[in-house]
C-alpha cells in the first residue's frame, strides 16, 4: 500500500506571510489535488494536477499558487495569509486523470494565522 505525507502537520503564520505546504505520495499516482476544509463548508478544490508540471485551477484558486515539479510531490503556497484564517488543507491523489477513480487523502495540514 501507499501513503500520502503532508508537511507540516501544523502551520502557524503571520498576516501577510507567504506559507508553503508540501505533499508527497508513493502510490505513483498521476493526479494530485489540494482541497481546503472549513467547518460547515466541506471540501473546496484549490488546485489539481494531472501530471508532472501540469496545473489546473479549482474553484478556490485565488490567493494560492501550486507547483508539481515531480510526479510524487505537489506543493501549495498561500501567497498572503489572512488574519484569523483557520483551515485544514488536504492533499489527495488518484490514479489516471481523475473523475472516476477513488481519491487517497493525507491527514492534512492545519493552518492558523495570527
Amino acid at each position, binding site marked *: 500500500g501507499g501513503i500520502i505525507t503532508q508537511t507540516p502537520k501544523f502551520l502557524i503564520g503571520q498576516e501577510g506571510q507567504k506559507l508553503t505546504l508540501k505533499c508527497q505520495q508513493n502510490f505513483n499516482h498521476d493526479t494530485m*489535488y489540494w482541497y481546503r476544509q472549513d467547518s460547515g463548508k*466541506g*471540501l473546496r*478544490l484549490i488546485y*489539481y494536477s494531472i501530471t508532472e508540471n501540469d496545473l489546473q485551477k479549482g474553484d478556490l484558486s485565488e490567493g494560492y499558487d501550486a507547483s508539481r515539479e515531480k510526479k510524487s510531490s505537489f506543493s501549495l503556497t498561500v501567497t498572503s495569509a489572512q488574519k484569523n484564517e483557520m483551515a485544514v488543507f*488536504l492533499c*489527495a491523489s488518484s490514479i489516471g486523470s481523475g*473523475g*472516476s477513480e*477513488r481519491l487517497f487523502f493525507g491527514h492534512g495540514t492545519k493552518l492558523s494565522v495570527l
Partner: protein
Amino acid sequence: AQSVTQPDARVTVSEGASLQLRCKYSYFGTPYLFWYVQYPRQGLQLLLKYYPGDPVVQGVNGFEAEFSKSNSSFHLRKASVHWSDWAVYFCAVSMGHNQGKLIFGQGTKLSIKP
C-alpha cells in the same frame, strides 16, 4: 455547474437504529458519485462509489447508497449503526472519467447516542 448539497449538517441516531444521510447533486447528465468518511483524527476514506449501472451500491461496513436520477439524489443508508460510525460523511460528484475534479458537499456530522 455541478454541485452537491448535503442538507443536514448534523445527524444524531441511537446505536442500533437505522440511518439515512441525504445527498442531492446538480449535474446535467449521469454523474459519478461517491461517499467518503472522515473518522476522528483520520484522513478521508472512500465508503462507496457509483458508476452508471445498478442504482444501489454496496460499500464497506454495511453501508449502501441508492442513486436516483429522477430525484437527483444519492442517499447513504445503514440498517443498524454502531458507535464506531461516529464520523463526518461527505458526498461527492464528478463529471466522469478523465474529468479531473471531484466536487464535495458540505459534510454531515454523525453522532451516535448510546
